[in-house]
């Protein structure tokens, strides 16, 4: 069976990746802020 990607799955893909991606970006940005003193301190 081919690995199709019907258009009606795009909103679901966007939503699910956003739900996990946004917290991950938040965590990453907070960590990078924590790293800054290593290079400035």
């Amino acid at each position, binding site marked *: *069976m*081919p*690995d*199709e*990607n*019907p258009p009606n*799955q795009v909103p*679901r*893909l966007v939503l*699910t*990746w956003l*739900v*996990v*991606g946004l*917290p*991950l970006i*938040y*965590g*990453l940005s*907070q*960590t*990078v802020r*924590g*790293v*800054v*003193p*290593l*290079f400035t*301190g």
Partner: protein
Amino acid sequence: MPLSFLDREHTVAPPGFSRWLIPPAALAIHLCIGQVYATSVYKNALVAHFGSSLTAVGVIFSVAIVMLGLSAAVMGTWVERVGPRRAMFTAACFWGAGFLVGALGIATRQLWLVYLGYGLIGGIGLGIGYISPVSTLIKWFPDRPGLATGMAIMGFGGGAMVASPLSRQLMSLYDPAYDPADTASVASGGAVASLFVTLGIAYFAVMMLGVFTVKVPAPGWAPAGFDPSAVAARPMVSTAHVSAASAIRTPQFWLLWTVLFCNVTAGIGILEQAAPMIQDFFRQGGTSTVAAATAAGFVALLSLFNMLGRFVWSSTSDVIGRKPTYVMYLGGGMVLYLLLTVAGHTSTAVFVLVAVVILSFYGGGFATVPAYLRDLFGTYQVGAIHGRLLTAWSAAGIAGPLIINGFLDARGTPGELVAADYRPALLTMVGVLAVGFVANALVRPVASRFHEPVDDGGPVAAGATSPGVGPAAEPRTGPAAEQPATKE
């Protein structure tokens, strides 16, 4: 069975289902359970609230990690049988309930309830949750299993990154007197109880996204353009299946157990004492040239590379192969630990650079091992085998700190030492990595006597590289048919 929509047969993907929905489903689980590595955020608050010692509060984390290993080992076969959706749902219930029972323990000042809630109940959720998406990811990504499991297990590393700052902000919301920017500020017990309730509910909700998104591939499904023979032709990739019960009787399982144990033990050697270690390495005349804030930045950088290593190195293993990847983790780790011992004190740049690469190897070791197991034992019960292998993590969690703290305690107090005091511990880690290196070198394809019987028509033999689901795609019991070849 109640809640039958959770059953494996009700989660088979319809034609055209995008496999790229599976990684976020797995991430939804791992991002939540990764919170277990953010417990230091409220540790001091619990010590003050219960009027107990750091050790007594630390037991909460220890119980959770031990339960992670135990439940992953014991429940692995069940997870394989019921499928990812029921397993994820069960993990969400345990993890969420663990927080709520823990909150009750904090609110009523009953520390044993926190042990029972977060430690025991939550720990079961950790173990089931950790292994629940692994087998499914490998079946959806037969062409890139390292990338797929790397994404999920990266989420476990990322979970603490999300939970730490989020917890501080929530505690400051529940306790206005608490200042998250002030390291000396301690939140009230009530704020921590409220935090636990909030996290329990929020994590349950996010994990439900994974529950309702995850699906298993239909029998015979393969990604477009995927050539199973190309994967099967690679060195050290088996086309046979080995059950979890058989796997633990193979030398390969115990060699990989040793590999994981050594890699994790060595990584913990740095993680355990990261902040005082960088200050001690650059101490002259009793004063360190590295400030506390800089040391904290170093710890944050380590966690960043620990997370990135999971994704980057595990994905790389799809290209260079699993065994060479562990040669890099263990052999490269030995060189880097030696470099740290000999030249780590010469400049902070050298120290930081070497340490972050070591930590990236530590994270990579976790993320690459499911794909290594798939290569050796096939997809049949790879999740259950992975669960049993995770006991190496629990064992390393005890051995790593014991080794590093044992050596350092003999020299004085971390935070008041100098670089030379770390040499015995670091050189011991070189030895630990050497043991792992030898174990990895000894890994050979699994002997055919451990393989599961295959269907007469032979399609099951391709199951290791052509994913499937349900009985039709799994090895059947009965007289063994001709065994597929395994190569190195």
